[in-house]
């Protein structure tokens, strides 16, 4: 019995089952920053119906699997996003919406918005566009599902392993770092 669980082959089978459940049940925590917040309602309601992929809104970070950063992120909101991300439970995934999260987009020279989201939190999937339409959002979700099934959506592990690097970047832009410590 014990061997069966420790055995490499069966471990893999267990992982496949787990990943199948994970990919088909994505609870999203929509962090409504910027203009992307308005793309979420059509995505999850009647017209585009994201629930058929098992995508469902979660009320709090504790219940959520996917953190959606829907648009530009000012330094002030970044602090809240980091906190919300760290309150989520592993495994957790991040999706960046629109060009603002990728390279700053039209806010490329704004003193108050970050330019690369993945320097501060690990991003699993970026969706291009300004803003991406619901079709693109769903395509992004499908991509995320593929990554989860293949076991490649490991941003949360990456974050844990490189916490110092992330902290350094975060503390560079957030001047007054008054965040509770987390025991990983």
């Amino acid at each position, binding site marked *: 019995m014990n061997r069966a669980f420790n055995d490499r082959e069966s471990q893999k089978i267990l992982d496949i089952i787990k990943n199948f459940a994970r990919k088909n049940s994505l609870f999203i925590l929509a*962090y409504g920053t910027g203009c992307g917040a308005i793309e979420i309602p059509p995505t999850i309601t009647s017209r585009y119906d994201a629930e058929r992929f098992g995508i469902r809104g979660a*009320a*709090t*970070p*504790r219940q959520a699997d996917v953190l959606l950063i829907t648009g530009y992120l000012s330094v002030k*909101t970044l*602090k*809240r*996003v980091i*906190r*919300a991300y760290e*309150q989520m439970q*592993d495994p957790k995934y991040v999706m960046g919406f629109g060009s603002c999260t990728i390279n700053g987009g039209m806010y490329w020279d704004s003193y108050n918005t970050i330019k690369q989201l993945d320097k501060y939190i690990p991003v699993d999937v970026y969706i291009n566009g300004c803003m991406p339409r619901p079709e693109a959002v769903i395509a992004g979700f499908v991509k995320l599902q593929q990554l989860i099934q293949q076991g490649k959506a490991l941003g949360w592990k990456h974050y844990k392993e490189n916490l110092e690097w992330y902290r350094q970047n975060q503390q560079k832009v957030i001047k007054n770092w*008054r*965040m*509770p410590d*987390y*025991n*990983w």
Partner: protein
Amino acid sequence: MNTLVVLLLILFGGGIIAYFAYNIHKIVGDIWLVLVGFAASIYYIGYLDVSQVLNIHLAGFVLTLALNSFSWIFGLLIAVLLPLVALYSIPYMKGQDRLGWFYMLFLFSVGGMYGILMAGDWLTLFIFWEIMTWSSYLIVIYRRSEDAPRVGLKYLIFSAIGAYSLLTAIVLIGANVHSLSISKFFEVLPMHSLGFKVLVGSLMLIGFGVKAAVMPLHVWAPDAYSTTPMNYTSMFSGALSKMGIYGIGLIVINLYYHSGISLAGEIVAWFGAITAVLATYYALIQKDAKRLMAWSSVAQLGYIVAGLGIGTKLSVFAGIYLAVLHGLFKANLFMAIGAVERQAGTTNFSELRALIRKMPWTFFSALISVIVLAGIPPLSGFVGKWMLYESMITSGHYVIVVFLFLASVAGFLYAFRFLFGVFLGQEEKEFEHVKEANPFMTVPMLLIALFLIVLGTFPGIMFKYIARSMADLGFYGVTYKMSVLTNDWGQSINMQYIAASLVIVFVLFLIVLTWVAYKNSRNVTTKDIHTSGEPPSEEDNYHFSENFYRPFQRAFAFVYKYAITPVYNEFARGIEDFFQYVRRLYTGNAQTYALYVLLFLAILFLIAKNIH
């Protein structure tokens, strides 16, 4: 020597010696108090001879001391509580002055309670009743807090109403029955007229109802329970109020049911049910743990009175069971509140926060007591509630049972309010230094809690004594089993299976969940919660304590609007004013009052004898 007298001597003599012992040194006094507590308790349980009777001839009256099985069970409750409360008192009363005075009164009031239970005639009962009332009154005003005089006055005036109506009833009995013996009185009662029975019964019920805090006479109770030092309140609410229940039990069963006026008993039950509902509704809007539990006491006593008032075999059984149980868990709860008060310095819900990590044992015993209070299976409170409801349903009292259900469902609300307000919620820096209470305080609480747990699955432990006491009330052939409860229609539940099912599932999932979740567990503080991402600063506290049941209050605004008391307060204020006026005639000295009571007694007797 007569064992009954020995017990009284232990308590009253112990009280007087305690006064001097505390004047020598606190430690001497503490040791003496615990000694007296354990001695009285062990003597009562182990050596007391129930069959003994003592007649004292005094000034033409015969004072009888005799114990029966019905009063024995209330004595047992006192005997269980007394040593535990004595242990608890040692750390609780540390730093208070006039300890000798306090403990003398404490032991006197316990002695008074035993005297009441032993009384074989109405006069003895009345004498001990007054001893108990006076000593408890002096304890109520012991703390010299701001509102102690007002509260004491309230308590005194209601006690006086009770005492005078009791005395009037006794005089009427003396005049009409020519004997003050309690058993004789119940024997000859069926021969008397209906008017006499109703009049004497009502007067007696007023007298006992004051102590049992039945609705029209409850006004003193919330104030007095919350003002008194908590170690005495646990006796006050736990044991002393049961003296009223004892009296009501005697009257309702013997006077009403065994002489054919069961309607009066049902009216008593209705009073109990209304008390339960309204007191519950007031309990859940209280802002202080003490006052909440004080109102809760009133509500719980309402259940017991309702159970006794219905007067079927099962309901009286349930009433006595609940009475003993209420004595235990409410004493435990007041002890827990006392521990919180001592450690955290307040019992106000708006100040207290999240003591669970600081005082885990106090929390545990309070939790068990609250579960028992709410009557949730598989603990012992449910057994009493089940018997009470089933007895009412099977005897067709379905409207009254709805009222009791209402009280009990609303009881969940204040049960949660209490636990949340004191022990749960967000942690506050102010209470970081708080530590668990002294073992002398926690161990008695935990002992009671343990007993309450065991009693849930094996209520038969206590049924034995209750079944015996039922015989003294005229209910013969009461059968019971260790953990199977049966109602009058023959349906039964088995507490063992229920408890086993709950415990097995609980433990099974506990093991699984702990095993699976333990490895990657992250311990977080109460600040690390979902606050929409905003990191709370040091001084922010999101504890939820104000307007706790606002929607409920809004929905039931009519209860609070019409049933509470503009009228009632006026009434109380009027009585207080009246008493203030009367007070001016006297010296304000307690002894003078006692003298007046005795004078009144003497005069009444003279009049009664002359009329005859």
